[in-house]
């Protein structure tokens, strides 16, 4: 096993790229549409590409376009972006636990590429997460996002209607594909996902919270409740054993 551990970085990078391909496929239609919408909102191709290059956050970029067309001020748009993206704080905190790298600079740079999708793929990985893996995962996702945003603006059209509609399921299907294998192995995972899904559905349909906060709160509530229940159960079972 020792010789397998040596010379890993390149292998890890490749594994990251492979895991990122589903994300790249899922980003393509969303980014193409973003480019198209940016054009109709009046952004130049340079501004469109710059936003995808620097922000790299789908939901927030879409919202900024609709706010711009409503004539909203910059400060409000930036504030909304912050609120929509605050959920990444929770994701980075979680990922930090299973991502080993002594060189802090790697995490500082690569954390730029943490999105709902790159986080989900990395977080359900069975092995530890490495910086090489993250670099592969993020670079293929980021490339798809930036290039397709530019293409959407350049071509001024998105995919054919039916394909566009069918492809809108891609990222959700990927989330399902990431979740189900863990669900089959552990009842805890089933409870965690189901509970968070219920909370988020309630928050969404009752309009109590904005999307950003709804996901954060649903996730936290579910993670805390399930952990607490498990602790209580273990204490009952484990009394006298420790």
């Amino acid at each position, binding site marked *: 096993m020792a010789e397998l551990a040596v010379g890993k970085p390149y292998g890890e990078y490749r594994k990251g790229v492979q895991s990122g391909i589903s994300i790249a496929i899922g980003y393509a239609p969303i980014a193409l549409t973003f480019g198209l919408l940016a054009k109709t909102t009046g952004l130049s191709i340079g501004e469109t590409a710059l936003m995808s290059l620097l922000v790299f956050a789908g939901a927030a970029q879409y919202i900024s376009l609709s706010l711009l067309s409503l004539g909203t001020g910059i400060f409000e748009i930036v504030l909304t972006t912050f609120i929509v993206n605050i959920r990444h704080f929770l994701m980075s905190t979680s990922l930090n636990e299973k991502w080993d790298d002594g060189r802090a600079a790697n995490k500082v740079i690569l954390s730029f590429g*943490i999105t709902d999708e790159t986080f989900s793929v990395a977080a359900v990985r069975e092995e530890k997460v490495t910086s090489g893996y993250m670099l592969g995962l993020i670079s293929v996702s980021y490339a798809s996002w930036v290039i397709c945003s530019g293409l959407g603006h350049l071509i001024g059209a998105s995919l054919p209607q039916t394909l566009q509609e069918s492809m809108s399921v891609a990222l*959700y299907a990927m989330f399902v594909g990431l979740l189900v294998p863990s669900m089959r192995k552990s009842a805890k995972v089933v409870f965690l996902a189901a509970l968070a899904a219920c909370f988020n559905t309630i928050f969404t349909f009752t309009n109590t919270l904005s999307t950003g906060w709804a*996901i954060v709160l649903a996730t936290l509530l579910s993670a805390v409740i399930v952990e607490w229940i498990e602790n209580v159960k273990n204490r009952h079972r484990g009394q006298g054993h420790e």
Partner: protein
Amino acid sequence: MSSHIVWMIIGMAAVTYIPRLLPFVLFKGKELPGFVQGILKNVPYATLGALIFPGILLINEDIWFGIIGAAAAFLAALLGANVIVVVLGSIAVLSVYSFLV
């Protein structure tokens, strides 16, 4: 490029990057309490649940679109299909569905 759009983009970039970065700096080399670690291990699965629902049901005005897409993805994943097969499979199923409707 108009400068106020560029400033907006820079502002958006900063407030997006900071929450992504901060945990890696704040919790660097720190051992968090066991209970908190347990919660953080739960976060990925809870996040996935919240990311899938209710979003997947709302991808189209026709709610069946989301239901069929979700069912196809769950079925493919339960059968042990690779993530990319799950993605391409649900796209294919929905292409057939939108062709038929």
